[in-house]
């Protein structure tokens, strides 16, 4: 078997083994297993619906489904960035193996929470239909949107994984930033409710556009704004480029610094 082909097969196998190991360690030993991937956003949704729907009386139609859609995309974002940041420093023994393709680790970090999202997707569909919606053909655009978000997260993931090697508080700062950013991202409210003077700033947050597009597809049954998706695609390319460059530069520093 030629070396390059073997390498490809090996990298794929390595990716799958590490992915399975991650999933097993997360879910296999708990009695509820993968159900946790669904229960966590369901509980979050219940609490947000109560607090903002019943207490603050936010007036959004089909509010629980609205929040659930936002939460799934947001949780993926948060989990992916957080575990990417630790992907290298928490796996130093793997990185020290000769010939180990280090880039696999941040990819696993972004993929694991994607599987959580996919596991919760059927429940979301049930919610959407039960709340009086219907799944339109626009749902077919969902994979494209997931791919766009995946590439976006992967770009930032590579960047964070590289930075964490030099700066050990990246994960800590990230934790604080993500908590704050959660409130500045329209997860439990709609961007229409944001006052005009703040909208430009909101427009700079890529997650806003992801959430709006998910809701177009899932809640309204309309196709997302393709111009927005195009801008996101360009952004993905830029972020991936920056992230990958940083990561590759840090690659040899990994072993020397760890």
């Amino acid at each position, binding site marked *: 078997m030629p070396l390059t082909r073997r390498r490809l097969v090996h990298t794929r196998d390595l990716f799958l083994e590490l992915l399975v190991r991650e999933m097993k360690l997360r879910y296999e030993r708990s009695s509820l297993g993968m159900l946790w991937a669904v229960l966590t956003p369901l509980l979050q949704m219940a609490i947000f619906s109560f607090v903002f729907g019943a207490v603050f009386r936010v007036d959004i139609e089909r509010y629980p489904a609205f929040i659930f859609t936002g939460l799934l995309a947001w949780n993926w974002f948060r989990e992916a960035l957080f575990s990417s940041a630790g992907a290298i420093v928490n796996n130093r023994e793997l990185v020290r*193996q000769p010939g180990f393709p280090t880039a696999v680790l941040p990819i696993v970090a972004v993929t694991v929470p994607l599987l959580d999202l996919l596991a919760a997707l059927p429940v979301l569909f049930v919610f959407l239909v039960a709340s009086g919606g219907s799944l339109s053909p626009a749902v077919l655009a969902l994979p494209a949107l997931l791919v766009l978000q995946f590439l976006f997260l992967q770009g930032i993931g590579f960047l964070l994984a590289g930075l964490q090697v030099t700066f050990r508080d990246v994960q800590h700062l990230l934790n604080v930033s993500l908590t704050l950013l959660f409130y500045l991202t329209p997860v439990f409210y709609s961007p229409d409710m944001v006052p005009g003077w703040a909208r430009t700033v909101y427009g700079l947050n890529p997650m806003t556009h992801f959430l709006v597009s998910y809701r177009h597809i899932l809640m309204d049954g309309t196709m997302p704004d393709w111009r927005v998706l195009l801008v996101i695609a360009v952004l993905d390319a830029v972020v991936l480029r920056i992230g990958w460059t940083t990561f590759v530069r840090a690659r040899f520093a990994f072993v020397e610094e760890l």
Partner: protein
Amino acid sequence: MNRIEAHAVGKRYARFAIQRPRKVKEALFRGMGGLRPVDTFWALRQVSVEVAAGKMLGVIGTNGSGKSTLLKLIGGLSRPDEGTLVVRGRVVGLLELGTGFHPDLTGRENVFINGVVTGLTRREVSEQFDSIVAFAGVEAFVDSPLRTYSSGMRMRLGFAVMAHTRPEVLLIDEVLAVGDLAFQKKCVARIATFKADGCAVVLVSHNLEAVTETCDEVLWLQHGNVVARGPAEPTVTSYRQANEDDDADETGAHDDDGG
């Protein structure tokens, strides 16, 4: 055929200020200037060595002499700053046994993870699975979590996986010091098989008896420079004498520059 060819290889490390920022916070307060190294030093300089297929090179020297740095360079984990280094074939590092092992997963699951991490494909692992388990002698426990294994069983399992990787270049860093006599014998026998199959082996060790016994050639490093290079027996003897003249304390000490 030479599997490893190093010509005048050197590796320079940066020495950073002790108060080098390790956090974004610190870097912001003190300025990014602190990130630049204050000084550099050569961990390895002018090292030339060849290891032919089927040969075994022993690397000896006191702590901090550059032994581990040399292994990292050959393993492709870091790049030389000067000189040329060519490594031909699949490199397997036996730097620690059972990389990727997790106590909560079963022996079977760990064999697959460790095998793939060490460079095998899933198919290669499953084809050799029975043989790996038999080699380690843990047949009765394959489906029990690794945390129920004794440390000896864990070690045997790690070595068994490595023993099935068919390396072309094998890097060993002191691991053979662990384990009982029977296990060590098994390891040495396995390495002899690798050599017979055309594998080049590099052994870093403080165990001078083992080096004399198993290595075809020995490289003696001191402060990153080559002191001597030659047949095992005489090189080890002169190393011993130099150490006795110098200070007897060094023998038996463990290398702590592994990263």
